[in-house]
C-alpha cells in the first residue's frame, strides 16, 4: 500500500499549480465563463506546450506515456483553478474513446493532433432524456452508399461550440438488447447538417444542443466496431466519472482553502471568526469531506489506471464526491456570508461547478444504484 504520489507526480502537481496560478487567474475564468467560446486559445496552446493534452497517452501517438493516475493529478489541480475550456472533452472523453476503440490510422491522426493541441474533439452521447442508458440513444445512423447518414438530437454535449470533431454515439441497429446496435462515428463539426446551440447553464459551462440532420459520414469514420460501441462508452463513462471526481476534489480543496483563510482574517466580536467553534466545526466537516473524497477518488483512479474492473470503486467515488463537493461549497458560502453571494466574489464559481460536476456522468443516486448491485443487492 502506498498512498503517496510519485516524485514525478509531485513535480507535475507543483508545476501545474505554479502555471495555473499565473496563467489562469479568476479574472480569466470569469471572462471565459461569460464568453460564448468558453476557452482561451492562448492558454490552450500553452497547456499543449507543457504536454498536458498528451500527458497520459502513449508516446507513439505523440503523448508522454503517462498513466491515467498522472492525468488524475493534473485534473485535481485544474479543478482547483477551475480551468475553463475543452480539455476534459478533448482529452478524457474523445482521447480515451480513440485510444480504446480507434484503429491505428485514427489514433495517429486524431489522437496525435489531440496531443499537440491542434484538435478539439468532444463526444455527443446523451439525448433528450438526459441519461447514460443505452436505451436512450435514438440518434440514427443509416447505411447509404459507402457511408452513413446521421439524424437526431444530442443534448448536454460539452464544448461542441468550439469542437473540430464530434464523436457521435448513434444507433445503427434496432435490437431487443439496447446495448447492441450502437456505433461511434467521428464527425467533422463543419459537416453539412450539423447545427449546435449553446445551452444556458447554471455553471456557465459550454454544454450544447447538437442537431444532426442528414449528416453524411464515410464508413471509415466509424470508431471501433459497427454495432458494438456501447461497451466502449461504458468503459469511457467510468473514466469520465473518475476524472470528473478529480476535478471536483480540486474544487472542494480550493473552496476549503479559501474559506479557512477567510475565517482566519475576518474579525467579528473582536476576534477572528475562525476562533468560534461553530466555524471551526464547519471547517472540520469540510476537510473531512475533502480528504475522504480525495482518497476514494485516487483509489478509483488507481484501479482504472491499473486496468482493474473498478466498477465499484468508480461508483463509490462519484457518489460520494458529488455530494461532498456540494456540502463543502455550501459551508464555504456560509463562512463567507453575504460577500459570497455576490458575482464579484469567487465562491460562486465553485458552487456552480459543484452542481455541474454532480450531474455529469451519473449523479449520486445513479452510482449508489451501481454500488447496491456491487455489494450483492
Amino acid at each position: 500500500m502506498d498512498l503517496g504520489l510519485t516524485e514525478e507526480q509531485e513535480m507535475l502537481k507543483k508545476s501545474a499549480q505554479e502555471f495555473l496560478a499565473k496563467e489562469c487567474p479568476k479574472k480569466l475564468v470569469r471572462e471565459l465563463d461569460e464568453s460564448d467560446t468558453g476557452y482561451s486559445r492562448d492558454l490552450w496552446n500553452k497547456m499543449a506546450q507543457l504536454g498536458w493534452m498528451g500527458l497520459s497517452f502513449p508516446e507513439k501517438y505523440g503523448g508522454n506515456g503517462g498513466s491515467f493516475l498522472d492525468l488524475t493529478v493534473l485534473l485535481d489541480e485544474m479543478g482547483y483553478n477551475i480551468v475553463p475550456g475543452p480539455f476534459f472533452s478533448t482529452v478524457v472523453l474523445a482521447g480515451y474513446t480513440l485510444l480504446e476503440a480507434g484503429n491505428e490510422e485514427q489514433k495517429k491522426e486524431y489522437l496525435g493532433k489531440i496531443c499537440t493541441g491542434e484538435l478539439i474533439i468532444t463526444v455527443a452521447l446523451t439525448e433528450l432524456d438526459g441519461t447514460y442508458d443505452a436505451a436512450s440513444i435514438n440518434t440514427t445512423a443509416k447505411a447509404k452508399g459507402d457511408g452513413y447518414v446521421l439524424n437526431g438530437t444530442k443534448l448536454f454535449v460539452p464544448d461542441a461550440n468550439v469542437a473540430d470533431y464530434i464523436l457521435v454515439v448513434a444507433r445503427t441497429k434496432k435490437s431487443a438488447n439496447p446495448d447492441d446496435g450502437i456505433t461511434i462515428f467521428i464527425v467533422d463539426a463543419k459537416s453539412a447538417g450539423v447545427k449546435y446551440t449553446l445551452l444556458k447553464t447554471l455553471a456557465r459551462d459550454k454544454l450544447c444542443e447538437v442537431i444532426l440532420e442528414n449528416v453524411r459520414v464515410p464508413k471509415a469514420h466509424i470508431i471501433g466496431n459497427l454495432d458494438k460501441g456501447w461497451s466502449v462508452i461504458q468503459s469511457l463513462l467510468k473514466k469520465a466519472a473518475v476524472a470528473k471526481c478529480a476535478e471536483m476534489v480540486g474544487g472542494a480543496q480550493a473552496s476549503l482553502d479559501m474559506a479557512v483563510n477567510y475565517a482566519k482574517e475576518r474579525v467579528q466580536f473582536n476576534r477572528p471568526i475562525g476562533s468560534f467553534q461553530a466555524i471551526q466545526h464547519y471547517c472540520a466537516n469540510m476537510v473531512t469531506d475533502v480528504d475522504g473524497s480525495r482518497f476514494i477518488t485516487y483509489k478509483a483512479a488507481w484501479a482504472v489506471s491499473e486496468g482493474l474492473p473498478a466498477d465499484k470503486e468508480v461508483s463509490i467515488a462519484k457518489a460520494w464526491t458529488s455530494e461532498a463537493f456540494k456540502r463543502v461549497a455550501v459551508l464555504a458560502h456560509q463562512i463567507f456570508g453575504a460577500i459570497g453571494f455576490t458575482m464579484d466574489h469567487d465562491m460562486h464559481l465553485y458552487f456552480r461547478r459543484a452542481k455541474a460536476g454532480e450531474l455529469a456522468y451519473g449523479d449520486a443516486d445513479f452510482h449508489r444504484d451501481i454500488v447496491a448491485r456491487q455489494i450483492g443487492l
Partner: protein
Amino acid sequence: MDFKFTAEEEAFRQEVKDWLKANIPPRWFELTTGYWQETDESWKIARAFQKKLGVKGWLAPAYPREYGGADLGHIKRLILAEELTYHNAPVGVETEITVNWVGMALQHFGNEQQKKDYVSRVAKGDIVFCLGYSEPNAGSDLASLQTRATEKGDEYIINGQKIWCSYAHYADYCWLAAVTDPDVPKHRNMSMFVVDMKTPGITVRPLINILGCHSFNEVFFDDVRIPKENLVGEKNNGWFQLAVALDFERSGVQTAAGNQLLLDFLVGYAKSTKRNGRFLSEDPALRNELAEMAIEIEVARMLCYRIAWIYKTGGHSNYESSMAMLFGSELLRRMTDVGMRVLGKYGQLMNGSKWAIGQAEIARSYLASLSIGVGGGTNEIQKNIIAMRGLGLPRK
C-alpha cells in the same frame, strides 16, 4: 500510489483469519458480547483469549519482541486489527486501553524497572489497566481534574474521585492522572501513576450503561497510599505525557471493520427476507441506503488506512486520527439507524425476545453507538483538533 496489499500481507491476513477461526471459543459467539455488554462469563472468556493472543505476540503486535510483542509493521497491524474486529474476536476497549494507551506510555516514559514490571505482562495479556482520567467535573476539560496525589515520605497519598473507569471492577491496575502541585497552573500540575487496584482505600462503584450492563465505574480514592516509585515519568509532567500518548498510533480501523460486519449482516438479511411480497433487497429506498453505507465505509476505511500509511512512511498523525475517529463514529450511528430501518418493526426487539432478528445485534449496536463519539474524546473535541491542529484556525 498502490492501493493493494502485497502478497505477503495477504498471506498474513489469511493466517490471522485461520487462527481466529480456530481459536475463538464457540461459547463467545453464543454470548454475542458487543461493545459495553460484558458479563462475568464473557470477561473470563475474553481474558483467556487475550492471553492466547499474547502468546502469539498479537495482543501487542507493535511492541518489540523483547517485551512480548511481534514487532509487526504498520500495515500488518492494520490488517490484524481489521480482522480481529471483523471476526468479532474477544478483544475490546480493555485491550485498547491496556495495550495501546498505557503499555505504550510506559514504554515511552517509564523507567527500566517499570518497563520490566509491566510492559511484558501487558503484552502477554496477564494484566489489565483501567483509566483514571475523567472526573465528575473534568470530562472534555480534562486538565481541570482535582484528584490529588500528595508526596509524603516514600509514598504518595491519593484522594479524589474518578469516573467512567471502564472495567475498573476487573482491572489489576489503574493508570491514574492526579494533581501533584496544586499551586501551579493547569497543564503543569499533574503526574501519572500506576495504582494497584487492590490497594486499601479504593472503592469501585458500578455505573450501569444504556444497555443495562456493568462496564463503567466510579472509583473513589480515600487516603490511598502508593509507593513513590509508582510515579511514571517526571513529576508534574503528566499533561505532556498524556498529550503525547494521544498521538500514539491508532488507525481506528476497528470502526470501519465493525461497520462492515453490520453491513454484511444487513445485506444478507435484505436478500433473504420478504416484506410486502418482495425481497427487501428489491426495495429502491433500502438499496439506496445500504449502498450509501457501503460507500461511507469505504471512506472511513481509507481515512484509517491513511494513518497506518503515515506511520509507515515515518510521519506522525495527529488531526488525521481525529478525522478517522470522527467519521467512523458518526458512521456507526448512521449505520445502526439504517439497520433498524432494514429490520422494520423487528429492529426494536432485544436479545432474549423469541422474535428478535439474529441476536439483536442491530438493536444493541444502535444503543452502543452512542458511546462511540463520546468516549476517548468527544466528536466536538475531535473537530476542535482538526480545526486548530489540522487547519491552523486560531484558538482566540
